[in-house]
């Protein structure tokens, strides 16, 4: 078959690239996590030794790894609901029939999404500045004392969450906006005739209509937030007192500061397994809710 042969030729370049630079490395990551791969092994593979699950044991008994894991969970648990709330609020406002200049607002709300993370982290580090930062200045209007955002371990992670919400809410807003527009107007009409209030309309028409898309964006946002790296790298270097050390930052330091590449692979693999498990859990919970 000519077409079939052409098909193979057409997919071959992309598949080769993906196989060599993605699929094989993913499999190799697991293999590598079972070795003591380090700088010496990088120079000469003869120095490589198989160590079984030693890297995993070391990690799971290392307080710093648990700290990084805890920080990452904190970021995800605080950041994902707040981000989704902001996205939903923005989508409802932009979609409102009463709103004017919708396209202008949509563009402004979306702009942070396309900005460079490193650049806006630098900007926000300045906004969070204890003495000269704009945020503390605004808080001062309301009689709130200056907060040491980047220096107080209690506030460093919330600061990063604020940045993450600002940077990301426009993305989900666009997706939710499209979903809102696909809810049939008839449903609202029918509910209104039955005497439903604004809140009841939202609760019983809008939310059920958005449910599948909300599940999708919550999973996408969650997996994105588990990969926290550039924000702490630029704003806090993981500090103060390791309060913003994320799992990926930990992996980066293990791998490319201490060159324990075997252990870094184990970190990457654990993160992946964790993300995968939580995604499955979310899907299952969602399914149960639909059935109930």
């Amino acid at each position: 078959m000519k077409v079939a042969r052409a098909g193979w030729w057409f997919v071959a370049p992309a598949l080769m690239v993906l196989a060599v630079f993605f699929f094989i490395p993913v499999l190799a990551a697991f293999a590598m996590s079972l070795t003591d791969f380090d700088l010496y092994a990088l120079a000469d593979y003869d120095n490589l030794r198989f160590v079984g699950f030693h890297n995993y044991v070391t990690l799971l008994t290392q307080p710093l790894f648990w700290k990084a894991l805890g920080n990452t969970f904190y970021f995800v648990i605080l950041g994902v609901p707040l981000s989704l709330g902001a996205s939903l609020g923005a989508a409802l406002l932009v979609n409102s029939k009463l709103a004017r200049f919708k396209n202008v607002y949509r563009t402004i709300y979306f702009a942070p999404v396309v900005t460079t993370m490193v650049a806006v982290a630098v900007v926000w580090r300045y906004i969070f500045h204890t003495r000269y930062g704009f945020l503390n200045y605004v808080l001062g209007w309301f009689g709130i004392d200056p907060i040491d955002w980047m220096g107080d371990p209690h506030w460093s992670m919330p600061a990063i969450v604020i940045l993450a919400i600002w940077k990301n809410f426009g993305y989900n807003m666009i997706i939710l906006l499209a979903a809102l527009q696909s809810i049939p107007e008839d449903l609202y009409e029918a509910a209104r005739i039955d005497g439903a209030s604004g809140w009841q309309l939202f609760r019983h028409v809008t939310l059920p209509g958005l449910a599948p898309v909300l599940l999708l964006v919550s999973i996408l946002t969650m997996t994105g937030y588990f990969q926290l790296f550039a924000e702490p790298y630029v704003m806090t270097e993981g500090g103060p007192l390791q309060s913003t050390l994320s799992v990926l930052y930990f992996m980066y330091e293990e791998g490319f500061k201490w060159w324990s590449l075997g252990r870094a692979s184990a970190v990457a693999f654990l993160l992946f397994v964790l993300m995968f498990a939580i995604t499955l859990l979310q899907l299952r919970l969602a399914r149960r809710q639909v059935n109930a």
Partner: protein
Amino acid sequence: MRKPVATFWVNAALLTGAIVTAFPLVWMISVSFMPTGAAGHYPPPMLPSEPTLDNYRQMFAKHSAGRYMFNSAFVATCVTLISLCFNTMAGYAFAKLRFRGREWLFRAMLGALVIPGQVAMIPLFALVKELGLVSSYGGVIVPAMASIFGIFLVRQYALSIPEDLLEAARIDGASEWRIFRSIVVPLLKPILITLGILTFLGTWNDFMWPLIVLSSQKLYTLPVALAGLSREYVQDNELMMAGAVITTVPVLVLFLALQRYYIAGILAGSVKG
């Protein structure tokens, strides 16, 4: 609520949201024109009292921002052109050219979308080092020459190409490559523009992998260089804002010019996925 009152609140909330969202970017630009030290005052100054280009001059003359900008543009352009070519061919084939194992292969690829790129990063570094690509443009470009997301995006769009059109060309004796070049690619143009922008902006903004693989300073992309400078010049806010402007304004402008295509890409990529 009566209508005029509700209208007022909805629009007031939208305006407040817009001010809060735009403020960091507007302030970034404003501070970048302030002389050194002017931003270190309380209350924070809104506009430069004596606007100056000194920070930009310093970024380009002393900190080789021009060089980093070239690196970013070069790497992003190469990745965009090469991956666009490979992804388009593969996406079209997955949609329209029937071959054995196609469905199976496509499903396996979709399944792999859940694997975060960072899992591959460490073995990838060892591989790239074996290939002698560490600290070269190739180290960033080569692994990014194809993407599952890109193939998927093109495939979804290519499904709508009418089969008759391709059959007619085949009967006329056109080769598959010729059909692809002169019939398929023109039809795919909108999605190619979309994918091109997504890829270009994604590569321009990428941080972790370039940070790992570009160890020599003269190859740094803008984000990598800015992250390094921002650790060194923590106090020099005005200079850092100029650096942030140089890094992020090019992509913002590109987005504003082509936002229709960009947003179409996000919707196609996530709602159908």
